[in-house]
């Protein structure tokens, strides 16, 4: 990694930075309040929380409101991180979007597909960025995090990471950190079939981020987004080096979405297909999580 010397002063990360003012929707729940504390400790500017019916209370000394509207009347708000339980998560996301918030990190898992489709349609219309659902969030090490990832496994640096998997990201990030390969921004796309950002969106951002010198892409079986990403990388002659890891090589043929799913996906979806496509696009693919660091150093 010697060709990517670490700098003292880091520029902005992608999507969030030190000056991002965020609210926490679902701040009064166990997860919401726990991670609000951790995010504050990390230096994230959490300005307010929203939990309907809990307006007027405080969590970690942060004021809680009943509605996003009220939070915005009292604070500058750039982003929202959502911990609201699945049945109510779409409502929370739409509330944030309708109130003009342009960056959403949706931690909640088990959101119905129909709800996610609605969220994404709205986000697209108003040009908002959605991370998740079912994501560990985003961290720009040393600057800010909007997410639930353990902060100590990250360190500032030049590697951009984008992943469909939470703990696997931690596994790889901590191995990079141990090997002194710091990260510019690490972003979890989310494990659901329908997510906001995808690999291609994120690669475009990393391309424009001067801080990022190389990218780690962590995929898994299911869907065809890795294959489409490989196509994109090849077609656009993507200028920064990428190392990939794909989980699920030993998995049996997964749950297939009937004939319709098979027709939509063609042969895509298996680890084999994804690895082949990425390799053909010039991406180095690691066999084991610990190989990622080695391949970055080549």
């Amino acid at each position: 990694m010697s060709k990517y010397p670490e700098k003292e002063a880091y520029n902005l990360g992608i999507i969030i930075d030190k000056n991002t003012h965020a609210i926490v929707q679902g701040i009064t729940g166990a997860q919401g309040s726990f991670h609000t504390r951790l995010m504050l400790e990390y230096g994230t500017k959490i300005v307010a929380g929203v939990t309907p019916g809990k307006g007027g209370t405080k969590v970690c000394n942060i004021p809680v409101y009943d509605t996003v509207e009220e939070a915005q009347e009292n604070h500058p708000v750039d982003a929202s991180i959502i911990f609201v339980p699945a049945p109510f998560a779409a409502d929370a996301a739409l509330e944030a979007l309708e109130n003009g918030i342009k960056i959403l990190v949706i931690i909640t898992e088990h959101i119905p597909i129909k709800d996610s489709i609605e969220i994404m349609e709205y986000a697209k219309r108003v040009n908002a960025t959605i991370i998740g659902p079912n994501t560990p969030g985003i961290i720009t090490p040393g600057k800010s995090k909007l997410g639930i990832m353990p902060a100590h496994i990250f360190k500032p640096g030049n590697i951009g990471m984008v992943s469909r998997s939470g703990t696997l990201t931690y596994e790889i990030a901590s191995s990079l950190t141990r090997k002194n390969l710091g990260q510019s921004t690490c972003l979890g796309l989310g494990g659901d079939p329908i997510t906001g950002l995808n690999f291609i969106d994120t690669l475009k951002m990393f391309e424009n981020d001067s801080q990022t010198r190389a990218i780690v892409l962590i995929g898994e079986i299911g869907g065809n987004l890795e294959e489409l990403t490989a196509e994109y990388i090849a077609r656009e002659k993507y200028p920064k080096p990428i190392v990939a890891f794909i989980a699920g090589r030993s998995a049996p043929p997964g749950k297939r979405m009937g004939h319709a799913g098979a027709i939509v996906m063609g042969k895509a979806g298996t680890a084999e297909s994804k690895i082949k496509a990425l390799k053909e696009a010039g991406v180095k693919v690691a066999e084991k999580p610990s190989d990622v660091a080695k391949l970055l150093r080549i």
Partner: protein
Amino acid sequence: MKLFEYEAKNILSAYGIPTPKGELATSVDQARKIAEKLRPPLVVKAQVLVAGRGKAGGILFADSLAKVKKVAEKLLKMEIKGIPVKSIWIEEKIEIKKELYFGITTDRLNKSYVAIASSIGGMDIEEIAEKHPEKIIKFLINPKMGLRSFHARQIARKMGYEGSQLNAIGKIFERLYKINIDYDAELIEMNPIVETAEGKFVAADARIIIDDNALFRHPQYKKRFFESESELFPQEIEAMKNNLAYVKLEGNIGVIGNGAGLVMATLDTIQLYGGKPANFLDVGGGASAEKIAAALKIVLSDPDVKTLFINILGGITRCDEVAKGILEAKKKIEVTKPMVIRLVGTNEEEGKRILTEVGIPVLDSMEEAAEKVVEISRKGGL
């Protein structure tokens, strides 16, 4: 959650989509009574949730009452891909002129629903899609518009229909989309939808998979989800009840981890070192000691499991909780199988202390741990 064919057909029928007249039987006697009512020629279809039922002999024809009895007897004794047939659906035989395909599922890239239609349907639809992609109509559905009458007619036209047939099949597509939305389906398909000799359309087979995450909006299925998932292993049912993601595999190394990606990578690494995982078990994020204990019990109850690999990278999950869960499980069940534990992350020191105090060793590296568990299993487990 997969619905049985008869459940799907009853829904289609309630939405005004023509389906063959039919009834459900769980005994030969019932089958006979139904057959007398519907009158042969009839089709008798095993009601199982596994795919490929037709090719496995689960769909039989009967042109007499005697034949219905015989066929019913045969099917009700049959196992399809290891699943015993508990009920059969008996329906009138349709005069088929043409088999078509129509289905709706999600499109990840476009973040919307997509309709798939083909004027050639039936069991070989996927092969057709591969060899003759031009026969397949993909119609992306704008989430805010839905699949309207006019969209349905656009598809019907592309399938080559006109006149009253265009309107009739269009109406069926429109209604299927309505079911898709009302029932939170992640897949809904009619394969085949049949054009009859008289030019009518009938959904001869139907398949609905409801989005598990949306079951809170469909309490009638949530209940039945636990009641009659008769095709699952006991471990799978137990896992479901404990909100754990469990998949039975064919090896002998039991695996427990947190996060689907990490567990998958664990399986891959075991395999890389020459081992064979017995299962996939993801405890999810922030698992409590109770949940960890439940996970251990489930994996250890599988007689195929000879050794156990616990791989935890604590983020929201706390290593001390995991350690406590392991001790709790040990207290309640006799654990005689060897365990390899990898435990790092949040509250790592406390977790390690708890386990090493009672003599359970803990490793730091997932790959080392994988190598070790493979080695133990090669020696026969014990």
